[in-house]
């Protein structure tokens, strides 16, 4: 086995997926949902995206449990035959790397807009990639352990932001509920559900969890927790900025800038949002890790560490050349990301599961 360590469900199924979704979701999602769902954005996040996330989690874990001790890259050839299977595996590896490059790009776009407009994007890309290399070389255990504390820091930063602005929020801005019916809410839920679907990572992590039978429970909790957290953030943002939410690039960042308590606790957004660097670094590391692991398994290597550095170079370079400008990132997230993501998150895993059941591949035990 490539990865020697074992991690528990709390680390790998509750916290890691949370950190693999939230850090960038929290930046982009509230504004994107507001474009379609207006003041009902929180419903898109709490209901639509959560339902999708739960579906993805269910399929991914059911599929993984049929092939204990194997990742999707390893068992896809078993299900679909060597050629098609390898192709699917390669598809996943490509998807992870591409998505990781997008993540780095998203976050650099944010940092450049918000903090350091003069700094070249490649600097952020290189630093994020380097941090991820360090984490990935440490292995899954290291990422998980660091994740536990980053999780605390991340939640803390959100609690601080929301807690300090809530006193001058006007919750009646959430009215009227479902003004234009359900359709805009579902439309607004597409991009967030593509983010939420990133829990499909579990296809790669499940073999290293020490009690895979209980994983589904933790993963569900994780998806629901993400829904609650994002919905909360959106509720506060909407009640603070009302109709302006959709025209802000980063509503939660604007919220943080708006903090003012006792006249001197203000303008602390740098400190709070720098805490998100920690979150993003774990997010990048997780995708990076599964990409490296998958690549190693694809080529039947004994260790994934030799592929780690090349992938890092690809990531840093690709993230710089992916998009021309920061608006293009958001456009991509709105238009291309949902179908692209849903293919790998739900469509392919469901097909794999279906074929596996029909061809009676893998164990039939379906989790206890």
């Amino acid at each position: 086995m490539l990865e020697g360590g074992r991690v528990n469900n709390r680390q790998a199924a509750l916290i890691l997926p949370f950190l693999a979704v939230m850090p960038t979701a929290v930046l982009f999602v509230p504004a994107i949902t507001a474009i379609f769902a207006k003041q009902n954005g929180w419903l898109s996040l709490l209901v639509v995206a959560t339902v999708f996330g739960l579906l993805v989690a269910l399929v991914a874990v059911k599929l993984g449990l049929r092939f204990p001790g194997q990742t999707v890259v390893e068992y896809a050839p078993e299900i679909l035959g060597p050629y098609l299977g390898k192709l699917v595996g390669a598809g996943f590896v490509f998807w992870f790397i591409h998505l990781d490059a997008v993540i780095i790009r998203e976050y650099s776009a944010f940092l450049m807009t918000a903090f350091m407009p003069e700094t070249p994007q490649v600097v952020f890309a290189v630093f994020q990639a380097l941090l991820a290399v360090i984490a990935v070389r440490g292995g899954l255990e290291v990422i998980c352990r660091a994740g536990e504390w980053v999780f605390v820091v991340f939640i803390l930063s959100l609690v601080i932001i929301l807690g300090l602005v809530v006193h001058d929020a006007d919750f009646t801005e959430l009215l009227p509920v479902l003004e234009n019916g359900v359709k805009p809410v579902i439309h607004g839920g597409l991009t967030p559900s593509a983010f939420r679907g990133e829990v499909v990572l579990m296809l790669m992590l499940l073999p290293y969890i020490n009690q895979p039978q209980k994983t589904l429970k933790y993963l569900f909790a994780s998806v629901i927790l993400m829904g609650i957290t994002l919905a909360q953030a959106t509720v506060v943002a909407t009640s603070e900025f009302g109709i302006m939410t959709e025209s802000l690039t980063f509503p939660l960042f604007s919220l943080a800038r708006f903090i003012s308590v006792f006249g001197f606790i203000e303008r602390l957004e740098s400190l709070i949002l720098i805490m998100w660097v920690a979150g993003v670094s774990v997010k990048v590391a997780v995708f990076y890790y599964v990409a490296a692991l998958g690549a190693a398994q694809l080529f039947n290597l004994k260790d994934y560490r030799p592929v780690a550095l090349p992938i890092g170079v690809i990531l840093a370079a690709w993230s710089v050349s992916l998009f021309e400008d920061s608006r293009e990132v958001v456009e991509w997230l709105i238009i291309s990301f949902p179908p692209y993501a849903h293919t790998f998150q739900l469509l392919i895993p469901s097909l794999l599961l279906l074929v596996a059941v029909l061809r009676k591949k893998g164990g039939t035990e379906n989790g206890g």
Partner: protein
Amino acid sequence: MFNRAYRKIKKLLKQNKQAGSGDGAGSAGQQPLAADLGRNIQELRSIFERCSDVVMRQLVINGEPPVDAFLVYIDGMVDVHLISDHVMRALQMNPALVPRNQRLTGPDAFSKIKDSFIGVVGIKTTSDMQQLVRQVVYGDAGLLIDGVAAAMVINARQWESRTVEESNTEPVVRGPRDGFTEKLRTNTTLVRRRIKSHRLKMENYKIGQLTQTDVVVAYIDGIANDKVVEEVRRRLKRIKIDGILESGYIEELIEDQPYSIFPQVNVTERPDKLAANLLEGYVAIMVDNTPVTLIVPVTVPFLLQSSEDYYNRYLYAIFVRMLRFLALNIALLLPSLYIAITTYHQEMLPTLLFISIASQREGMPFPAFVEALFMETVFEILREAGIRLPRQIGQAVSIVGALVIGDAAVKAGLVSPAIVMVVALTAIASFTIPNYSASFSIRILRFPIMVLAAILGLFGIMTALMVILYHLCSLRSFGVPYLSPLAPINFHDMQDTIIRMPRWSMFQRPQLVAYKDPRRMSRGQKPGPGRQDKGDRGDA
């Protein structure tokens, strides 16, 4: 290319070493003693040639007939009174005063002397010359008797040593005042006096081919993790070195991750701290000739722990630990935060502070980063000078130097007053870290973080912190994750980290270290009126 060459050289060196290791003093073969005293004396004289501190005394035992004997020991390492009173006097006693049946005659003279004449407890025999020599250099006295191919080794070791006094590096207000000394036996005694149990094991090792340093591995059988103990033994046995002069030698040779900046072995000079750690299942490595004892495994909360925390009431201990935690963060981050905030994130300052700092900095020649680097370096120099200088002057220099140089630098327009304040605060904060070797890591890490803060502001600081976090997460000390119980999170063991729970609620030992026998005390001992009879009375 380079790699291959390097490996080849290493191989050659290894072979060389193996070839050379045969002639070390410790690994010499057997060499039996002769029955003839003259030959033995000759042999000993040639071995101890040019050793002016070796005393060799020829004497005659008043037996019937008188027997020749030979005493050899190293001056200063044996108790001369013991030798004269209980060895010499007994041997040279007037035979007329001795009952007839006990007179020294014939072949059993040797055992008679050993069993009934010499009034010393520690006495052994050996028939090997090398063994005799080894014991003599250890501080034993050797007694040879003519006609017997054996020697008595009399344990009369006593040498000058410091008395037991309070440790300088780990002073406490409340708690015992004794500290370890350079003498291993004293140190083991100090521990044994605290843990009067046969389960306290002390395994002896001799490390160092020339120095033959005694190293004791102490642990409590049944509490300490066997795997850790076995790992300690394995790593100690691996050490092949000419000499061990301080426990630092051992520390560097048994670390898990030698490239890490963090100490992976805890050290103490306090027997009470050592005893407490032993009771929790840690393993101690005590080294002769140094008061500094090693404790393994180590986990990161030790940065904040002082033995006094356990003697003061828990609320005070929690308060003090949080204070130390704050100070730790200040010591690590304050200069970098100052740089990052004044050069990148000025909005974080309250407006009036902003204006105040800006007016101070007006007309300053250097950027904030250079200022901070300069002052930090000056402070580190002062601190080093304070340690090197004679103790009485040292303190004066570090305090006066700091005040004078800081003030003069401000007056001369070299640095702004704010940075002097920042650096002073940082320096003071770094003194609160109870663990001396850990404070080194913090002091060193401060500088790269400052550089990153100067390049990338808060983003740089956070990047540095994440690198540290990932590194700490991947570290292990003797199989125990370095960050435990913080990561992986172990809520049970959190009882004694940044907080310290009341003693009656910490009824279990730390799980990661002492998983074998977790029970420390019985539950339900929370005191209070009328609560004396409650709770199960299990034996801890």
